[in-house]
């Protein structure tokens, strides 16, 4: 029961945000989220509630993290350590 989808915050009003999840606008509750939320932020949404704030930087970093692991290993190989 882990299905959570990322979506973009279009507007907020008290503890509710209107979020664009895959092209579909949904009302999402913010009660379960620690941080404040602004339009333009990204949220992970589970059963209509926000559980995590996401950012483009973090999403980009994910690829960097993968690439770093791949590169480090390639270097180690070249040095004959693997």
């Amino acid at each position, binding site marked *: 029961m882990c299905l959570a*989808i990322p979506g973009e915050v279009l507007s907020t009003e008290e503890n509710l945000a209107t979020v664009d999840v*895959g*092209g579909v606008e949904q009302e999402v509750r913010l009660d379960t989220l620690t941080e404040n939320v602004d339009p333009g932020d990204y949220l992970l949404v589970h059963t209509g509630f926000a559980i995590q704030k996401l950012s483009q930087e973090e999403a980009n970093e994910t690829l960097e993290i993968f690439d770093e692991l791949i590169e480090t290993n390639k270097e180690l190989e070249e040095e004959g350590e693997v």
Partner: protein
Amino acid sequence: MNDSAEETVQVTHGAGGRKMDELLGDHVLNALSSKSAGSIGLDQLDDGATVDGAGEGTLVLTTDSHIVDPLFFPGGDIGRLAVCGTVNDLAVMGAKPLALTSSLIVEEGFSLAELDRVMAAMEEASKEAGVPIITGDTKVMGKGDIDGLAINTAGLGTVDEPVSDAGMNPGDKVILTGTVGDHGMALMQYREGLSFKTRLESDMAPLNGLLREARKAGEVTAMKDPTRGGLAAALNEMTEKSGHGVTIDEAAIPIREAVSGVADLIGISPYEVANEGKAILVVDPESSAAVLDRLREHPLGREAGLIGEVTDERPGKVVMETEVGGKRFLEAPVGDPVPRIC
């Protein structure tokens, strides 16, 4: 609109007397422009209709009943679905459609204005396909004895060499004439009441023109339209009947981003829902490039893609190479897809 907007279908409309003549005249005959394929057609309201042009070829007959719910949805309605569905059944057998029948079973109390909408859609589809509706029937059932409206259509066509859905050979290429999952996902989205920034629309379209062109460009060994059960059901039927296997390259399957997005959201695979304006073509490898090019020249085939190939491994199974490079079976769907929540 005249005062038919206030009126509804009554049981007397189906009883065969003057009221029925009025219904047929005002709401059926008047709606259609192409009503004959021979000397006796719909206007004659005879017991049957005649069909010229069958020629030396083999006759192909098909029938379908349409009970889609809701009747009206983004991209069309039951009327368009009825005409396109039957035309396409003929077209994927390689047949030239000659004529259609249309039988309506209407619930007492059904809005005449909505009936007019359905008939207008049938007329539009009939014109697009270039296929006349030459005979039919109209029945009215009591309130609650049927849900709104059901349509049965039969289609007659002619073909020199029929193309079955089982004819594929190892080495043949598998082509999909356009984007997958449009109709089924549009209906899912509409039924679930997901409020839309992007509204998905059904892809209903008559494919007889497109497929005729495709067959001129190369050798098509098998065809099927992936309606109920979607791409997955259709491919599995084709492999089971032919006794061969198919490998599919997931990354090559044409799909609209919005369809993919809604699919993710409600947890239903776009490969398991109906398509009503697409066909699967299996083509001899020598002519597959030519067929693909010809498809893409046609308005209904612009997004055609070469999605896979027929093999002699794993007979009866469809193996999909996933976007990430893994392999899994593409199985026929189990039952009716229901949105997954979590």
